[in-house]
């Protein structure tokens, strides 16, 4: 491990544009990576991590000005000609990009694209390259690689495409692989598979990996050393244990404190970092973190603190008070204070006695699968939601979780449509929606509101915040809107005097608060939230989650919370329903389901989520699922999960018959905990 570094980056800076409008995206990044080492680069969006990676690869657009030094195996890459760089790229230095869906050229076969990577750098015949491409596809775990090599990218799932991109990256035995958010676009079980492939690829090639990510959990389990970036600069560098357990930069501390944890059950408030990350076009004076820092002193604003060693070797932090934190004068746990609860936690009656706010029973939504451009014909049925049953009681949050394609968003849309479902019943506040007159439907719309995922596109950019909030009130005939809108804005933590502004004047987190205020305008009893925090950075996300929790307690709301982030759901939800291929796999109180999951799918799902705790992460055992989600147009017979189920493989021939023939129903596992598995048994996966 302690050989000479293969890649040395020193004082790398990237500037876009000129003069006053110049954007300093990267401002002096230095690091080195040794053979076989994994360096994690973490930071929020806009921190300059991806731009640094592209600068190292020499793939920035021509309007970027790059300075500093990038040395690969002793050769300076900055300023080298395209010809020279092309010789290094793909051979000594390769890259895996974030979005596998667009990373492959749509018009060439996958095998040919991998072969191309080989033939650029080696003297191989077409046949030899094709054979090697098949071997590489096999190495990254693509089933029946000979046939799959002949496929076009659109015939691959996202996970398979990312495997193909990894195959391309390791084709020429590189010395360094840069992975830019390699799993961000993937589902969590697929993420676990891809990380596994990356680990295998590293083992195979002995390459150093630079892993760029915003996910502190992935960093904890995958990397040796970590570099935390903020506003285009590294603010803390060290081994993963040093940085996670002995953080010396308040930003790192704040970041780690603001992540909801999958392995922590207690419902304390999260600790958000106040404010927003600065725009790279308008950085504050001095330390760029100073406006958000709880420890800020006058010195912070005078000059930007350099990255200096703290006590332990190799651990660097850029903070004037790092010494005090290190010396024990400032205990880390006292730097950030969890916000006080406004009111004591409300005491609810036992669950069974509370009113059912939303009752869904056997809900079905099938889409016809059509084919042909001119003459359309039905060739099948997509069973998006295929018999979903759950109930949500007053004052409760039900988390609906599952991977993409499991039907959670379709379920939510069917509930919001308020028309008779194809099959099954939906009852909102005790009223069956299939038999509603339009005036009753209007009344239910007032009691049931929605918050959408994307705070950019869910607010009309041509309306002021006042108009956005006034619209639902006017629609339902409210007069004298001014005071109510002021009240709503202060309720969600925004300045009432900002009502005249437009959505574009607000940051992502603030926009989501406007979306929440709009949902609250009519004092609803039930709010449906579709991935409300997944578009936000962690430090911002914590604030929005806290707000949602506080509003629920103060206003006695009930939430149906659709999300794919299991840690967020554990934090915010009282009960959780796990969906797989249009059906509920497991449902129950959050503590029960997370601590002793019964369904093999829930177990795999939970074990796939990385925890931002290096020691725990290293000790965990992952249950890796094989393959991708089957198509909802042709779900497997019997139990839908059996094709990927680890339990199905473990049980005997005779017992398997039941899984193949009989579709399991959700059966009680004690209390209101239920799992749809014939052979469910508890397993601790955290």
């Amino acid at each position: 491990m302690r050989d000479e570094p293969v890649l040395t980056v020193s004082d790398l800076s990237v500037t876009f544009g000129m003069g006053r409008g110049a954007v300093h995206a990267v401002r002096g990044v230095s690091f080195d990576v040794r053979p076989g080492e994994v360096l994690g680069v973490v930071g929020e969006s806009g921190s300059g991590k991806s731009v640094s990676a592209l600068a190292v690869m020499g793939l920035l657009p021509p309007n970027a000005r790059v300075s500093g030094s990038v040395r690969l195996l002793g050769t300076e890459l900055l300023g080298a000609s395209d010809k020279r760089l092309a010789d290094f790229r793909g051979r000594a230095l390769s890259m895996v990009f974030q979005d596998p869906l667009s990373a492959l050229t749509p018009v060439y076969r996958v095998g040919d694209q991998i072969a191309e990577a080989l033939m650029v750098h080696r003297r191989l015949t077409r046949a030899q390259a094709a054979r090697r491409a098949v071997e590489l596809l096999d190495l990254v775990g693509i089933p029946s690689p000979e046939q799959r090599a002949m496929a076009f990218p659109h015939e691959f799932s996202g996970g398979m495409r990312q495997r193909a991109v990894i195959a391309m990256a390791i084709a020429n035995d590189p010395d360094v692989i840069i992975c830019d958010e390699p799993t961000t676009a993937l589902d969590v079980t697929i993420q676990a598979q891809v990380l596994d492939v990356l680990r295998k690829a590293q083992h195979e090639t002995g390459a150093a990996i630079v892993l760029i990510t915003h996910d502190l959990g992935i960093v904890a389990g995958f990397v040796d050393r970590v570099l935390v970036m903020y506003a285009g600069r590294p603010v803390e560098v060290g081994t993963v244990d040093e940085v996670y357990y002995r953080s010396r930069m308040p930003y790192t501390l704040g970041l780690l404190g603001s992540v909801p944890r999958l392995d922590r059950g207690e419902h304390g408030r999260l600790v958000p970092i106040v404010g927003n990350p600065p725009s790279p076009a308008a950085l504050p004076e001095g330390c760029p973190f100073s406006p958000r820092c709880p420890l800020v002193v006058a010195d912070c604003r005078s000059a930007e603190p350099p990255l200096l060693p703290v006590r332990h070797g190799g651990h660097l932090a850029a903070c004037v008070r790092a010494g005090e934190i290190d010396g024990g004068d400032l205990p880390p746990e006292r730097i950030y204070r969890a916000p006080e609860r406004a009111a004591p936690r409300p005491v609810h009656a036992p669950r069974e006695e509370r009113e059912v706010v939303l009752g869904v029973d056997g809900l079905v939504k099938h889409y016809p699968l059509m084919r042909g451009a001119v003459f359309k014909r039905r060739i099948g049925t997509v069973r998006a939601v295929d018999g979903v049953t759950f109930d949500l009681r007053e004052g409760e949050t039900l988390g609906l979780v599952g991977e993409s394609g499991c039907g959670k968003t379709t379920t939510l849309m069917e509930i919001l449509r308020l028309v008779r479902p194809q099959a099954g019943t939906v009852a909102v506040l005790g009223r069956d929606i299939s038999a509603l007159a339009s005036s009753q439907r209007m009344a239910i719309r007032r009691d049931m509101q929605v918050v959408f995922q994307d705070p950019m596109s869910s607010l009309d950019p041509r309306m002021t915040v006042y108009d956005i909030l006034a619209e639902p009130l006017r629609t339902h005939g409210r007069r004298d809107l001014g005071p109510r809108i002021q009240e709503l804005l202060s309720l969600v933590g925004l300045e009432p005097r900002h009502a005249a502004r437009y959505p574009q004047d607000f940051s992502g987190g603030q926009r989501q608060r406007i979306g929440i205020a709009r949902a609250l305008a009519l004092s609803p009893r039930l709010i449906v939230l579709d991935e409300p925090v997944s578009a936000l950075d962690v430090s911002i996300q914590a604030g929005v989650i806290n707000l949602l929790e506080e509003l629920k307690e103060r206003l006695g709301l009930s939430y149906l919370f659709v999300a794919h982030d299991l840690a967020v759901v554990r934090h915010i939800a009282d009960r959780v329903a796990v969906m797989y291929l249009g059906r509920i796999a497991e449902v129950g109180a959050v503590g029960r389901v997370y601590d002793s999951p019964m369904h093999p799918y829930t177990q795999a799902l939970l074990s796939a989520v990385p925890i931002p705790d290096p020691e725990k992460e290293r000790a965990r055992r992952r249950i890796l699922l094989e393959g991708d989600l089957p198509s909802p147009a042709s779900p497997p017979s019997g139990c839908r999960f059996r094709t990927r189920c680890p339990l199905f493989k473990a049980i005997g021939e005779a017992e398997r018959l039941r899984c193949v023939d009989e579709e399991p129903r959700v059966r009680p596992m004690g209390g209101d905990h239920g799992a749809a598995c014939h052979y469910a048994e508890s397993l601790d996966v955290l």
Partner: protein
Amino acid sequence: MAGFLARRLLNYVALIVVATSLAYMLAASALNPRSNYEQRTPPPPPAVVDARLDELNLNDETPLFQRYLRWSWGVLRGDFGRTVAGDEVNADLARRAGVSLRLILVGLFVGSIAGVLVGALAAVWQYGVFDRLTTGASFIVLAVPTVVLANILIIGAVWFNDLVGAQIFLVSGETTPGLEGGLPAQLFDRLRHLVLPTLSLSLGLIAVYSRYQRNLMLDVLGADFVRTARAKGLRRRTALTRHALRTALIPAATYFAFTFGALLTGTTFTEKIFGWHGLGERLIDSIFTNDVNTVAAISCLAAFAVLLAALASDLMQAVLDPRVRMG
């Protein structure tokens, strides 16, 4: 795929029948061949005119539907009838279609290739000198009517011929009448005639295509797969041609195929000015001479060309884009 093609062809045939029938009825009721005879001095006796018009199936006193039936029966047997002068429409149009095709095919070929190249390069050097120059030039060409453009070309060519003291560019017709010499000499003569009309035709096409291709190319230049290609170790130029341009060609190619259909009868000005006796010229002439059968026959050809182009564009897309092939 075969069943799909058969259905589509059937669809097209029906469309051609409807379009041609409507064109015939419109021409037969709006044009008045009788006036051709009335203007003669001295006017021929009405009985002679009627007999002549009946013979040509152009008599406006015969009910329209009856004329239509006789005409369509002829068309079914592959005979588009006779012109007002009494010649066969088939023979006349066959010759003229050949002339138009020779002009269009070369023009389209030059126009699309040069258009793609200019557009792609302009995108790669976005906001550079080349991009600015070609953008400016395209808009000038688009703003100048073909008539003016063609005449500027002629003036330029004549000036050039005078300057070098030899007939390098020939500005009228397809061939030099009465030219002696073997095949190479004939070909060379045709080529010299072809340069100017082709240029006048393709300049307009280049202007349109290059704008179109530039935008398509800009869309893919920043695409992730182009970055992946470069990360593999491809040089910038290779990545741009092999990955970016190849993908950006798909929508452009279908667009080219469609212009071909529209051009077949749309090169009237070019044909007129350079003295090429093609279909476009004939269409205008036949309307002036009240030549119902020729108008209907050219409409039929145009409909056929447009639908052939649509089919070609579908096939081209299927060949270029694997996503369409599968779906």
